């Protein structure tokens, strides 16, 4: 028969936890800051090279919120923006392959490209199910986080998402 833990033992456990709790909390806080990292180092590269490649889908005039969004991203990364424009499909393929850091344009809410690239929250809404939003390379989580934060900073729609 197993005996119940004595109050003394419980106090010892409690004391042990309380003793190391601040160190554990500090470690976690430090970890909070360093994770996530990008598997292909997108954000580090942009910050080192001060250059950010942005695609814009042809045939649509960007609303003012897109300009504010890009300014916010450029400020966070200290990078100059190199703009490319073209048809959506080839540009999306370039985002998927890491040739473009960010692609902005009107996309369907449930875009068939959702599994191939990471869409951010909507910057603005178009007609019907169309949203103006940014797409980044899948898995570059720190870079995606930065783009999401910038979108939420400048857009009410992104904050409401």
């Amino acid at each position: 028969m197993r005996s119940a833990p004595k109050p003394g033992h419980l106090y010892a456990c409690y004391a042990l936890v309380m003793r190391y709790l601040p160190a554990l909390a500090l470690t976690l806080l430090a970890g909070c800051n360093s994770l996530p990292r990008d598997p292909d180092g997108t954000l580090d590269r942009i910050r080192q090279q001060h250059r950010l490649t942005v695609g814009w889908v042809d045939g649509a005039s960007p609303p003012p919120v897109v300009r504010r969004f890009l300014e916010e991203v450029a400020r966070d990364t200290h990078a100059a923006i190199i703009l490319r424009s073209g048809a959506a499909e080839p540009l999306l393929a370039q985002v998927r392959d890491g040739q473009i850091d960010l692609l902005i344009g009107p996309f369907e809410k449930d875009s068939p490209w959702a599994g191939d690239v990471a869409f951010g929250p909507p910057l603005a809404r178009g007609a019907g199910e169309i949203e103006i939003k940014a797409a980044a390379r899948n898995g570059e989580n720190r870079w995606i986080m930065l783009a999401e934060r910038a979108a939420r900073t400048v857009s009410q729609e992104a904050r409401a998402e």
Partner: protein
Amino acid sequence: MSDNSLPDELAATMRKAIRLEYWNLFWTATIIVTMGLVLGQSQTMKTAWVEDTLGVVPPIMFVIAAHMELRGTRSAHFPFGFERVNGLGFFVAAVALTAVGALLLYNAIMSLIATEHATVGSIVLFGQHIWLGWLMIAAQIYSLIPPLFIGRKELPLAEELNDKLLHTDALMNKANWLTGAAGLAGIIGLGLGWWWADALAAAIISVAVINDGVKALRSSTAELVDGAPRALSQPALSEDAQALCEHLQAEFPGTTVRLRETGRLIRAEVHGAHSPQDWQHPRRYWPSEKERAWRLAQVSFVPPVEAVAELLSDSKP
């Protein structure tokens, strides 16, 4: 003897086990909701979530089987009661575990082959942008705690009831820390920028699910095809059944003893022996602890072939 197929002395333990399984379902539901809220695109999280969702199959099957055993009375259509419903539930749970485990492993391997990079973005919580991975880690840690306690409580009840379904569930719950640790490693690895960590952790969890499923499948099919009674936690023959077999062979030398298991009960056939003149209750033949004698529900005698031949020749005109 009660009208249902459950031995009287097990009724209280069975009710206790049913109560525990309701708690198990409640805590598992909280885990499913918590994990579901932070799933994201992570393969590890999806696999862990499916595993947790699958975790409700054994307790649900147990509760259904237990209610039928407790309340289902013998009838013209079911003269043996519902003692084998538990075995059927065990089989259903085993098939579900194995099939979904295989599907999850396939998905994980495909993700690795396609070098898929899982996207885990951020959310705003209390005005702060937080990486969703941290919430996934918190959800994974939470998902470790209830099964650990429930598994510990299930184990003695499963042994007392000789319930394979409950026992499998208990072992799965107790071993849940392993899949939880794999899940945590997957998310942390993903955070460190190791894109393969997510799919690899998912594959490890899937293999654990398949392993549980295959073990359960072997035991449950053995029971359904009238195999010899199996041990609670593995497909090996059970020790108490082997002791019973030896005991019956010693009592009726020169005979063949065949044992099969119907749910938690054992039924024995002694081939090559007439029924003894002094009729005995089956429990009298139980060789070990008398409090477990309820395990032996039936001992039948099949006379030697010569006796049948004599009987046939006597009956000819």
